[in-house]
């Protein structure tokens, strides 16, 4: 018998299931609740969920500004706390300088003004000196520097204490107040103590007859009187530290192109891929080897089982 004959005879063979088996299967099929095929299987859900998650992550990365840009934006948009005073600069009245003329007090004022441009700074310096002079004061020091469109000046002005309020008021009109500080130190108590000390020493001097002792007491009294006079002179003038400056140059913001977000996303994806590769590759290799080994063993066992 040829192979073709064998095949032909085998193909003609008809095998039909017995009636009892057919009936059993029919009963089974009749019990089928005929639930329609689930349209949303977990695999299909995964196929949809993964791109959606990736899209959301991508959108998040693309729409979120980087920290660098955010900081710059904050710097550009959010001016210093005194920016409200800049807007209402003229309305911002200078601080009141409390001063009792009868007492000896050291008055110090720090005034920072914002000037619109570099030329304005130069003009304001001249005007500040004029104001000081007109109030019987003088400029102790003037430092002015210009750098391109920005300029700044630091002036130390000495104004008679009686005119300090007027001076501050007039100086504050040169620009917009950005900072102001007034300090008043009362020296009257110290002076009174010094006066009492001098009076005591003078009494002691009148009662002393020794030449050396008289000379020492006289020297001490003169020293105290000098320091007292020095203090009174210092207290006569109030010190005004005036700072004039143009607004700081706006920080250069980096204008990213429309594809910058894509680049950032790709960079993070690349980093993630490297990590995944470094960690996942050895694990994947081990898993693959295990899978191959299990498959080989199972096939060998199956062949042995069916080889009988």
């Amino acid at each position: 018998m040829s192979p073709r004959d064998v095949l032909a005879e085998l193909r003609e063979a008809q095998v039909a299931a017995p009636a009892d088996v057919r009936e059993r299967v029919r009963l089974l099929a009749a019990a089928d609740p005929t639930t329609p095929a689930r349209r949303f299987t977990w695999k299909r859900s995964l196929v949809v969920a993964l791109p959606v998650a990736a899209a959301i992550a991508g959108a998040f990365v693309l729409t979120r500004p980087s920290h660098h840009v955010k900081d710059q934006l904050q710097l550009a948009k959010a001016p210093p706390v005194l920016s409200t005073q800049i807007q209402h600069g003229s309305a911002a009245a200078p601080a009141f300088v409390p001063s009792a003329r009868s007492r000896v007090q050291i008055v110090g004022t720090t005034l920072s003004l914002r000037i619109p441009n570099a030329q304005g700074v130069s003009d304001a310096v001249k005007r500040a000196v004029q104001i000081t002079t007109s109030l019987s004061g003088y400029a102790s020091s003037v430092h002015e520097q210009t750098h391109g469109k920005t300029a700044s000046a630091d002036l130390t002005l000495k104004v008679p204490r009686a005119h300090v309020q007027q001076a501050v008021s007039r100086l504050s009109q040169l620009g917009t107040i950005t900072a102001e500080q007034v300090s008043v130190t009362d020296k009257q108590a110290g002076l009174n103590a010094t006066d009492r000390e001098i009076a005591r020493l003078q009494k002691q001097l009148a009662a002393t007859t020794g030449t050396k002792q008289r000379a020492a007491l006289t020297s001490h009294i003169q020293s105290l009187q000098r320091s007292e006079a020095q203090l009174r002179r210092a207290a006569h003038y109030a010190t005004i530290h005036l700072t004039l400056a143009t607004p700081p140059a706006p920080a250069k913001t980096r204008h990213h192109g429309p594809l910058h977000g894509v680049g950032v996303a790709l960079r993070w994806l690349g980093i993630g891929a490297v990590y995944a590769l470094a960690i996942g590759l050895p694990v994947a290799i081990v898993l693959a080897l295990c899978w191959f080994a299990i498959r080989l063993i199972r096939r060998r066992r199956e062949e042995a089982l069916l080889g009988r």
Partner: protein
Amino acid sequence: MTFAQAAEAHLDDVYGYLAWFTSDRFAAEELTGVTFERALRLWHRFDPERGSARTWLCQVARTVALDHFRSERRRTRREQLAAPLEAVDFRFAEGLSPDLEAALARLTAGEREVVALRVLLDLDATGASRILGISPTNCTTRLNRALKKLEEALNVAA
């Protein structure tokens, strides 16, 4: 396609496959019932895009048959110690010559399986290899080897 339609259409195929695979009518009848019970439970997993219902049912039937072979092997080992099993007279199909029946009986279960799939059920190499879990080339090699054994057995009988 509903389960009832698939069962009606492929009951004979599944039974024939199991009958030739096991060469045991009673076992084939029992395993056919078990196969369709299991298929009913797993019917929601059946995806027509991945293969025909017949292929899928044969895959289920093969799993059931392998479980049967394993339990049979364990049972045989135990019982052969007490009393050797007697050979059961089995006819593979109507219309086969006694020599071919005898030759088929001499084949191993694995060889009968590939003959059943490729010749009796007339599956192509791809479909049969999917059920067997091997490559199509390997499937064809197995079939040729089985047919050669059949031919040799028939020549000896002649």
